[in-house]
């Protein structure tokens, strides 16, 4: 349903992405991992139209969406969250969802559906600035969901959460995928989580594809172990 072909992005002389091609199938949860500065967030920003790509093409449901603006991409059915927890901090929780519902989905009632789905009724009138990190992330996810997206892109949604919160969040991500049939691309540092959540994943390193394939086999890949995991699975273990 979604694909990039030879996607590259340079900022001046810095090459952030080089020739990145991958495909995501309808209904799957697709993982993206890679060291800091590998270009994961840049990839999201290029896909969602925040930066135009330097070269390459982006396809969504058979349509070439390269160079579409973020709001147009949203209207086609792609929504995203940000690595830095982002909400409209002066608006209430409900109004945060309504922005996505009214402008993204053009269907106001989707805000109420998301409110129920994520169990945010108790805080619906609370200003978004007075929320803890976990709830802030739920509101950000909720606003994206309220756009009636077909593809949801999550940029390190679990960073900074406790183990219990991570499990809760994963449960929600699975439910969104299974009950609402939303295809998901998720960036995550913790390989263990990604392996259990996804069937296939992409590992970026220095803006290039290091690994693309079955999640189960990623730790057996010699190059991934060498570049990303650092010898004997160093980073993955350090994160545990």
């Amino acid at each position, binding site marked *: 349903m979604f694909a990039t072909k030879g996607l590259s992005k340079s900022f001046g002389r810095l090459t952030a992405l080089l020739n990145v091609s991958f495909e995501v199938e309808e209904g799957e949860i697709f993982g993206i991992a890679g060291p800091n500065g590998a270009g994961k967030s840049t990839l999201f920003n290029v896909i*969602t139209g*925040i930066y135009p790509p330097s070269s390459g093409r982006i396809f969504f449901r058979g349509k070439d969406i390269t160079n579409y*603006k*973020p*709001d147009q*991409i*949203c*209207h086609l059915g792609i*929504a*995203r969250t*940000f690595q830095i927890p*982002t*909400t*409209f*901090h*002066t*608006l209430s929780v409900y*109004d945060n969802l*309504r*922005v*996505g519902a*009214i*402008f*993204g*989905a*053009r269907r106001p009632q989707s805000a109420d559906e998301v409110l129920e789905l994520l169990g945010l009724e108790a805080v619906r009138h609370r200003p978004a600035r007075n929320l803890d990190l976990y709830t802030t992330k739920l509101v*950000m996810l909720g*606003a*994206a969901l*309220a*756009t009636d997206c077909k593809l949801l892109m999550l940029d390190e949604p679990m960073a900074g959460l406790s183990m219990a919160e991570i499990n809760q969040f994963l449960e929600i991500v699975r439910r969104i995928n299974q009950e609402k049939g939303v295809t998901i691309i998720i960036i995550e540092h913790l390989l263990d989580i990604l392996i259990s959540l996804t069937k296939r994943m992409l590992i970026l390193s220095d803006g290039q594809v290091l690994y693309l394939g079955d999640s189960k086999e990623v730790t057996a890949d010699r190059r991934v172990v060498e570049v990303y995991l650092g010898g004997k699975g160093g980073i993955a273990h350090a994160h545990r």
Partner: protein
Amino acid sequence: MKHVNWKFALAVLVLVFILLYPWLGASSYTKHLFILFFIWSIVAANWNLMMGYAGINSLGNIGFMAIGGYTAGILAKSLGVPPFLTIPIAGIVTSAVVTLALGLPALRLSGIYIALLTLIFADTLPSLLTQTREITGGAMGLHEIPPFYPGMDKTGAYYICFVFFLVVLFIIYRIVHSPTGMAFVALRDSENFAYCLGVNKFRERLKVFALSSLLTGAAGGMYVHALGDISPTTLGIEPFLLTIAMIELGGVGTFLGPILGAAVIVFGNEFLRLAGTLRLTLLGALICTIILFYPGGVIQLFHTIEHRVERLLNRKTPTT
């Protein structure tokens, strides 16, 4: 329920007072002050719509008012167009000029650069006015601009401006509480998030410029017909700073803030004329005091009082 009634009652009381004021022995001078208050609240409220709600740091809104004022003044004086036409035309002309000259370029700018662009825009107007002396009266300005109707007295101007004040505030209230207002705030709070949630940031930004300048330009038209003259001093530093002070003092990004701020500044400024040359110094001290103790502006002071009153009411209820 209690606090809603209390606030509503206060607002109604104030409006009824303003409505009856000319019958309660108001002098021509105090009616004049109220007219200034009505018009400057509108200018401040529209400026706040841009700066407070939409987060567009415009410094050129006095220029919008001047364009509206001159448009209406020239149309009425040189071409004899009646005021009920000059005011909407003033609004539309201002909106067209501002949207094209500022709104479109501002789409490519952000933050301080919008502030600079809009400031320069307003700053070029005085020299433009002196270059077009034949039409605009140059540094002398326009005088004896026809009033709203022949033989109009201060009371007539008072009521016309009061109605305009209510209508414009109602429009702003509706904008702020509509999806458009929500988009303005969303773009201010987090531009990229709003953009990725389907908010067309270019269209919404243009809307801010178009709406705010439309209503500010119309306020400029009201100004010239109510007061009879306009000159480049309107574009001077004092009106500029005082209007900014109204917004900051009242409570930026709140609906009532700029109106309260306009009341404090317009009436305070006149009251302080008693102090002669110390006027602006004392006004500055007043602003500093309020900002120091109530950084959210006068509106924050009101909220504090509201909470006190509520607590008082709640404390009394169980004992009785």
